[in-house]
């Protein structure tokens, strides 16, 4: 009983704080828009992918980028909770570590999906029509974000300082982003690059969202679904373990 109410309480806390930090919401929306207008617009004046304008082509990739960065960064809040000893208050409560982990995940998923929604409001500007299946877009983002938030939380559970956390995630974020096909099509890549992109779960997120928005894909939406689901489940397992092992 207190597991369920505890889960809700932990989620509610994250959500309240997210709403209170409006500057974070705004800044996290500005970055991807800059990518779309400046990078997409600049390169788009020269380049197109198939019959798609480059800006339109990278739009799904930038949506995924937004949730990628915000989800991994979300792990920093575990480090903050440790710093402030708030974590002890949660760890000493009569609820399981798995519940604590899942509460954090739900909070991070909510943050990520709200940020994606802000970006989705701008979709028509970049040539995406709303004829698309939004429910499926959210379903895929949901599964992807569960996995990514868990990655951030696992890293956060192991770090002592926010600076250390910042350093580590820059080594995680950029490979995941640049090797995901967010900025280029995955077909016809050199073999060595294909190995990396195929091993990167984020690629399947980009592939799925791009398939839903633009109708072009590399792996196919069913493969994307299976890979992302496995990624999410695996990360939940690893994250639960990491939280169980977490020392004060």
């Amino acid at each position, binding site marked *: 009983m207190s597991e369920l109410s505890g889960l*809700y309480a*932990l989620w509610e*806390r994250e959500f*309240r*704080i997210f709403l209170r930090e409006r500057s974070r919401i705004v800044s996290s929306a500005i970055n991807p828009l800059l990518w779309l207008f400046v990078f997409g617009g600049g390169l788009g004046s020269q380049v197109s992918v198939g019959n798609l304008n480059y800006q339109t082509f990278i739009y799904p990739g930038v949506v995924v980028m937004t949730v990628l960065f915000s989800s991994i960064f979300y792990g920093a809040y575990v480090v903050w909770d440790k710093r402030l000893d*708030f974590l*002890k208050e949660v760890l000493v*409560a009569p609820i399981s570590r798995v519940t604590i982990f899942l509460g954090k995940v739900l909070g991070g998923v909510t943050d990520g999906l709200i940020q994606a929604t802000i970006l989705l409001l701008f979709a028509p500007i970049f040539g995406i029509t709303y004829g698309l299946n939004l429910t499926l877009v959210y379903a895929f983002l949901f599964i992807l974000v569960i996995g990514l938030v868990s990655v951030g939380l696992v890293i956060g559970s192991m770090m002592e300082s926010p600076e250390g956390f910042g350093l580590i995630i820059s080594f995680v974020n950029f490979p995941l982003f640049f090797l995901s096909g967010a900025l280029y099509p995955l077909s016809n890549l050199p073999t060595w690059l294909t190995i990396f992109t195929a091993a990167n779960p984020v690629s399947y997120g980009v592939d799925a969202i791009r398939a839903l928005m633009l109708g072009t894909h590399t792996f196919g939406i069913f493969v994307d679904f299976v890979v992302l689901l496995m990624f999410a489940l695996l990360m939940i397992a690893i994250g639960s373990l990491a939280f169980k092992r977490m020392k*004060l």
Partner: protein
Amino acid sequence: MIIEIENLTKRFGDFVAVDSVNFSIQEGEVLGLLGPNGAGKTTTLHMLATLLKPTSGTAVVNGYDISKESALVRKSIGIVFQEPSSDDLLTGYENLKLHALLYGVPSSVRKKRIEEVLRLVDLTDRRGDLVKHYSGGMRRRLEIARGLLHNPKILFLDEPTLGLDPQTREHIWGYIERLVEEQRISIVITTHYMEEADRLCDRIAIIDHGKIVVLDSPESLKRALGGDIIRLEIKQPDLDALKKLDYVKKVDARDATLSLTVIDARSHLQEVLAVVGRVESVELHPPSLEDVFLNYTGREFREQEAEGGFWERAMTMRARK
């Protein structure tokens, strides 16, 4: 016995932080843990609260084994940590509600209970303010209220008034006293303040290097010193002459201060002054806990201050910047 501790030991690597500690606490009792920095007070509390696993030994809290029945132990206790542990981006009320949900306080009584503890610590009219706008003392009061919210049988207070001004400290002592009186709750409190220990505690355990050195009521501890204290400011004391006086039970020299434990000190004062040498100032008082502490640990109590007071931490650790 509400708490029974048996050979409780905690090692960090080779370092023994808590060394075979044994004691028990009665229902409704307030027990003070006094000790210098790094003595193992916080580590002991964390083991009792099931946040740290003991290396060996065990304890029974409210009838539950801390190693095997941690969930039941957790429901029985409330704890106020040494460092700030409320979320400063939530309001006072929201912090309490979060706690109530984490502890499964039924929704039918949740609101009423939150109002009760808010009233107890006089925070009713500030309940809607973000904790980051609270003063150090208000924050501490909120955390005490939170520790009480789920009606625990036992409350652990880790340096509850550390770094607070004397007035706020006085206030918090008042709340704690009322609590013991009205709710018959058992309390384990660690502190750096003599006055606090003297005023609040039924019994005091002095802990040093992870070991309990002595455990008794403040009165017995003082009486056990066996005399009054004469404190002298003196540059070159004649220690040999003092040793010849059989009514001088103990001599403690540090820097330019000499502390003597003297039987029937009043009538022997003139004789002591006559032999000890040129004295700058004299002070005679019945033994205080300070003297007890000095006697058992060889250290002055007032030198002890946990690193970075609560308030300092509260100021520097503004979360989520």
